[in-house]
């Protein structure tokens, strides 16, 4: 079957299954396979091995073309604010804690804001993490206005001479207009109160998410300008293939991946590793 002649139908079928099973989606998979079949006409001896490496090259190029892929949070003269947002349960609070730890290891003075004032014990959760990482956490009483937490956290960051403010927001489905409005309001508060700061708005996407991950990136990206995505729970067998179309169609780069439930389990996204994992 794979001894070096024209690739058989089952060769293309198995490639299709690999990509779709990795959540790359049928649309993008179809396009990739079609392009590859055209290219393969130029190869006299296409077997599974060089077929896969050709595909790996194509996928890597797709990702490398998305500006900001695998880049860490940016720092400059002014402080940086990292805003973590995304749907319910995606891993924002844990990522906020990991981010604080990670940046502190780089010598940054970090402050956390618990801007989820809605969900039960959300502030307690972030406070507990803050204790572990030795990071100050700005919190308000439950039920308060998340915008007020953001405002106070900005003042505290300025007063304390912090390099970085990491804001954890409540989970929200992009289908809820009032919750998206609340998010937009938070970004306005950031614009008004620290306009010269670098703003990193990162969408946290669970690696196990299917095609809805694209909808999320699209909807959140329409509401506020996103500067990147974090793929959480990437320690699972889920391949996170949805980020291929997120990158391609929306130009949104994956900056980090979450690799576990511990505070150190965050690292920069590596497109090569991602492609290898996706293709098995």
């Amino acid at each position, binding site marked *: 079957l794979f001894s070096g002649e024209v690739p058989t139908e089952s060769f293309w079928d198995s490639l299709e299954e690999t990509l779709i099973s990795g959540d790359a*989606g049928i649309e993008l998979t179809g396009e990739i396979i079609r392009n590859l079949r055209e290219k393969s006409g130029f190869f006299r001896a296409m077997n599974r091995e060089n077929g896969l490496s050709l595909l790996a090259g194509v996928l890597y190029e797709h990702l490398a073309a998305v500006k900001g892929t695998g880049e860490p949070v940016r720092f400059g003269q002014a402080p940086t604010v990292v805003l973590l947002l995304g749907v319910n349960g995606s891993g924002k609070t844990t990522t906020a804690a990991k981010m604080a730890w990670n940046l502190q290891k780089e010598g940054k003075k970090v402050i956390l804001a618990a801007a989820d004032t809605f969900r039960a014990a959300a502030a307690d959760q972030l406070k*507990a*993490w803050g204790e572990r990482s030795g990071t100050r956490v700005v919190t308000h009483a439950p039920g308060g206005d998340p915008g007020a937490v953001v405002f106070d956290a900005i003042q505290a960051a300025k007063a304390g001479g912090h390099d970085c403010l990491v804001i954890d927001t409540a989970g929200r489905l992009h289908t809820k207009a009032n919750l998206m409005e609340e998010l937009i309001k938070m970004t306005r508060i950031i614009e008004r109160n620290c306009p010269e700061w670098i703003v990193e708005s990162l969408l946290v996407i*669970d690696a196990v998410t299917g095609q809805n991950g694209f909808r999320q990136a699209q909807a959140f990206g329409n509401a506020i300008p996103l500067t990147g995505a974090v793929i959480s729970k990437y320690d699972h067998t889920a391949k996170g293939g949805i980020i291929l179309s997120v990158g391609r169609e929306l130009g949104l780069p994956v900056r980090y991946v979450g690799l576990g439930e511990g505070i150190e389990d965050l690292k920069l996204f590596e497109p090569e590793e991602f492609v290898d994992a996706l293709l098995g």
Partner: protein
Amino acid sequence: SLRERLEGVFKGLKNRGKLTEEDISAALRNVRRALLEGDVNFRVARDLVEKIRERALGRDVLDSITPAQQVIAIVFEEISALMGGGRHALAFSSKPPSKYLLVGLQGSGKTTTCVKIAKKISDSHKPLVVACDFRRPAAVEQLRVLAQQAGIGFFGPEEGEKDARLIVDKALDYAAQRLYDVILFDTAGRLDIDEDLMDELASLGQAVEPTETLLVVDAMTGQEAVNVASAFHGRIPLTGIVLTKVDGDSRGGASLSVRAVTGVPVKFAGVGERIADLEQFDPDRMAQRILG
């Protein structure tokens, strides 16, 4: 929509007369596409399409003047059959207390669902929710607060207690003393590939001897739904599925995949963050949604 696509496929053919196997194949490619876009697992979709193909090659479709309609009807019937048709209620034990164990991946909605189910049955039963997640920071507090908001009894560990099995025994005693007739155990999220945590789950199941073991699945779960569900089902026999965050716009194909691979029925749908936001699962509405 799928209906429009199928009508497009069959449109030019009514004048030609007979439908051919080729025409059916073209139609089925559209069905498969709809299923995959809807996050149904690759292999589940393949098997389902083959079942539909067998029926779609029958005379009642090939001779029909409305073949698109016929094919759609078959698609719905086959999905319905796979979903296990009808509504599946929560089971209660003939010898109370009824015990429910909620399990699943991280962030799927277990803690919230635990209190939602308790609330739903609280007018006919006296439920107690038990916190068995000692890993996630403030998980016990989260359950405590939700239970309090819902007016539901709560039992949690003492400061520093880390043994889930010990808590189960204490909770059963507590429930017996206070005459709770339903006990819901909220467990820590875990990856199906984490051997230690899957072992812990099996041992929790032995300690609880649950009336129902409910796998809580996020409606936006993609292709991995099959691996997750069969891994959990392999370690601790599942009796029901709860699909959460159905109030979003994900197509929810994971529900079909999970049902197909475990044979376990979806019992509830989480439709919001409030405690009241839990519905009986409606397989027909979900089938329409999956197909887009």
